[in-house]
């Protein structure tokens, strides 16, 4: 009987002032609901701020991928402050610099480029989740499509 496979925790920032915060939120939804469902767990930053025991346990018992919309890096700082390990921190701005054609606009609702940027970030996270699965014995099986590409 195998143990429950550890889920990689995904923590987006809660940025409300710029499109980059919305991109981080959207990317988190894509990876947790579409690309890696069952292998990732979305942990809301607000619960970490509050010190919610379940949210803290989630980040301390697994590894976390953080997505930050600005240089203040709230999600990365909060995960570390909560005792968690950040295995990858993604800055939306850095990804945008690599994809200048994907300029995100809109905070309440992203434009098409913003949605594409979120997908690029989600794909990057999914590859990282696969890498973790390959490195950690007993961890989740990598995504099928990623194996095919490999």
């Amino acid at each position, binding site marked *: 009987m195998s143990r429950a496979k550890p889920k990689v925790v995904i923590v987006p920032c809660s940025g409300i*002032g710029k499109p980059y915060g919305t991109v981080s939120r959207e990317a988190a*939804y894509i990876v947790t609901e579409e690309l890696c469902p069952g292998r990732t767990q979305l942990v*809301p930053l607000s619960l970490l*701020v*509050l010190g919610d025991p379940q949210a803290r346990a989630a980040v301390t018992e697994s590894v976390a991928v953080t997505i930050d919309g600005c240089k*203040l890096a*709230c999600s990365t700082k909060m995960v570390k402050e909560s005792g968690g390990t950040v295995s990858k921190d993604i800055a939306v701005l850095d990804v945008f610099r690599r994809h200048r054609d994907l300029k995100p606009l809109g905070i309440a609702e992203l434009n098409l480029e913003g949605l594409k940027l979120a997908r690029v970030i989600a794909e990057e996270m999914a590859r990282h989740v696969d890498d973790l699965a390959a490195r950690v014995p007993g961890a989740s099986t990598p995504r099928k499509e990623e194996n095919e590409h490999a």
Partner: protein
Amino acid sequence: MPDLPKKKVGIVSCSGEEMPEGTVTRLATLKVLWELRPDDTVTICLPLFLAGGQGERTFARYYPTIAVDGCERRCAAKGTEMYSGKPAASIVVKDLTAGGELGSPEGKGRLNERGKAAVEATAARIATLVDELRTGRPRQRATAPSSTPSPPMENQPPSQNACSCTSTPPSSVISIDGEKVSMLGLPLVFERFLDSDKVAREEIGPELLKAARVYNFISPEKETAYAGALLREYEAYRASKRMNR
């Protein structure tokens, strides 16, 4: 006395990513900031209370704050109180939607119609609270969505008050009797005095004290020390402005 900047109301939403009500808090907050009360409101990301600096932590002291939460865990209300100051008012979306005509919203990234209705209802409630906090009574103008449809939020440029992520409430550290004290709003106060050509003389000490007290507690027994320090700071501010001209 010079006019001081109008006092605004801060809105802190939980933005909880794991439930539709969290998305409702976020969109309702944006609707108030951009459409319903753009001149009267500011916001801050909840995690900035921890990740940010002193300016962020004094947010709720600087602004009377409305916490907008998705669920009964009340992360925004509790987090604001823990790290900044007690919110002046609090809303829980689930209280507005549960058992009522609105029903429970669905869709975290894309809200369904019930979710959109919840955004409207929550935004209207926030706007009413903003009016009450600013004036002490409800405003006459309608807080509910008007019959004239407003432009979609995503097409509206964020107002200068849309977020405080990178523009913290102005605070300064000054020396009072050899002790470092953080004070809020001094640049705004000094700018108004400068506009009125006030010279840093002892006579304006009481005026400076009164203006500084809008956003700061100053105990009566320390008035003299504060007045002296504020005069020194104002003189330094004037000098720096003269040099930059």
